[in-house]
Structures are given as structure tokens and as C-alpha cells.
């Protein structure tokens, strides 16, 4: 398993806007006529979109974890929100290295959203 672990001080139950994808990698070739051909080519990562309510201290912990511990790229152990199994995930950056987005909710409370990929 991965060497890093999602910090225990950070929340693990995402909000109601949680989404998850499933599937495998396939090649799909369109044809001039008829049904496209499809070929299985392997396992794929599953994308998990989560958002958490975090305090100022938790945001600081997340920021240090992403920027200093995993340096944005290393996988880490994470409890899957649906299956409750431990899986290896990476945070998927959007744009040019934006790993999470914080929105103000209330005094000292933030809504932090991010996209993760569960490694096959």
C-alpha cells in the first residue's frame, strides 16, 4: 500500500454532492455503418469528487499534506466513502496545479472540494 495516509484529523465523510465514476478502459471504433466495435484494454482509475466542511486548522493540515507531504503527485491511503475499504488515491489537479478549492461557508468554516482518482 501507499506510504502516505490521509491525515486522521481531516474529515472522511463527504457532503451530499459526492460523485463517483466506474468502468474500464475500452477502445471504441466507429464504423462507416453499423454498431461500433469495442475492445477491452484494461483497468481504469475511478474518479471520486468530494467536498468536505473544514475548519481553518483542517484546511492548514490539508494544505501542508498536499504541498509538502505528497508534493501533489504521490498516492496515499484513503477510506473509500462508499465501500469503506482502504484504497490508494491521488488528487487530480485541475488547471495548472489546482488540487482543491475552498469556498467560504461561515466564520472559520470552509467548503473544500477536490477530485480524487482511486488507483486500480
Amino acid at each position, binding site marked *: *500500500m*501507499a506510504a502516505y495516509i490521509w491525515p486522521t484529523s481531516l474529515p472522511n465523510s463527504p457532503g451530499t454532492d459526492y460523485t463517483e465514476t466506474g468502468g474500464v478502459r475500452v477502445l471504441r471504433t466507429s464504423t462507416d455503418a453499423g454498431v461500433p466495435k469495442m475492445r*477491452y*484494454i*484494461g*483497468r481504469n482509475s475511478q474518479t471520486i469528487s468530494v467536498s468536505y466542511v473544514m475548519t481553518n486548522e483542517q484546511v492548514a493540515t490539508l494544505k501542508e499534506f498536499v504541498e509538502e507531504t505528497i508534493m501533489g503527485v504521490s498516492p496515499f491511503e484513503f477510506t473509500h466513502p462508499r465501500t469503506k475499504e482502504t484504497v490508494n488515491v491521488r488528487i487530480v489537479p485541475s488547471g495548472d496545479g489546482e488540487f482543491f478549492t475552498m469556498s467560504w461557508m461561515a466564520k472559520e468554516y470552509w467548503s473544500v472540494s477536490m477530485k480524487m482518482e482511486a488507483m*486500480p
Partner: protein
Amino acid sequence: MSRLATLSPAALRAMFAQHADDTLITLVTITGDEISNPIRLADNYTHRFEYLSDTEMTVTDLSTKEASVYTFADTDTVIKDAVVSQPEEIFYGVIATTPRLFLPFAITLPTEEPEASSVCQIKMYDVTRMLIPTIRSITEAPSVLIELVLMSTPNNVEAEFPGFLLGGITYNRDEITAQLTVESDVSEPFPAYCFTPSYFPSEF
């Protein structure tokens, strides 16, 4: 003889069936005098490789989720260096007789024009810079062996294309592009001597 004649029925089915649950994986082996141990790569993956110790790694079959311990052999230098030097990382690859690291690459076949030289191009997406140190150190073109295997039977080589040389290598921060050439007598000058006044003065 057509290459199709050497392929197994399962490989043909994987290539041409309307719905195929198997696929061909391209294996590339790079060897040379300046490369101490073969660099074994695959363009797809069936297993996950994780660091266990400096002499072993955990290999997990992605289909069955079964994990086993693999002890590095003496010739596994490249994959051992990758896994041991980054124990926090997860690697992917294929167990085809020996373990092979997954590195996305694309091979462009030569054109079919009769007067065109038989030059393929290979583009490797080396984002983690696994190959760049080796590429920088070599001064002679290494040999390349290309093999095709089925994902379900990676130990059974369906087709092999030996004798390529890796030349014309260029790279940037995430891609290595090189030409795969075959030494051919057809492209050599013949005859060896030119009919010049110095060689054949009586001709002039």
C-alpha cells in the same frame, strides 16, 4: 508469409471481433553494450507493483486482486531501481516471463511507398523521467526487440519484430521520440567504388 498466419485464434479474435474482452500488448526490450541490463517496457498493464523491501516487491493481479511477493532477479535492475528508489509510489506493468514496467508509448509504422526507407518512429511518454538518464548516457544506437502478446497470455509471444536500432533520439520534459531503423543492404551504396577518374582513369 503474413503476420496474421502466426497469430493465435485468440489474438485474431481480439483484433477483429465485434466485442473483444482481450487485447494485444506491445512489449519493447531495449538492449545494448552501454545498457547493463535490458530495459523491459509494456504499453499496457495487468499488474500493480509496490515496494516491499529492497529485494522484493508486491505484485497484485488487477483482475483477480490476488497479491504475491516477487523477488527481484539480477536482470531486473531497471524495475528494481524504479520501485526501490520510490517506495511511496505505485507502479504498473505486465508479468510476461519477467516483469515489465508500464510506460505509455506509440509506434508509428513506416509508409508503404516502395522507395521510402523502413523507418518506424516510437514516442515514449516518459513523464517520470525513468529513461532519460539512460538515454543521455548512451553513445551508440541500442537494439530494440518488439513483441506482441495477449493480455490474457502474456508469456506466449504472438509476434516478434527483432533487429531494430534506436536512433535519432530527441526528448523534452515528458516525451522521448526516436526512430526505429533496420540495417538493410538495400540502402547501402553499390558498387563500393564510384567510376571516377582516380579509380578508372582509362574510362575518361
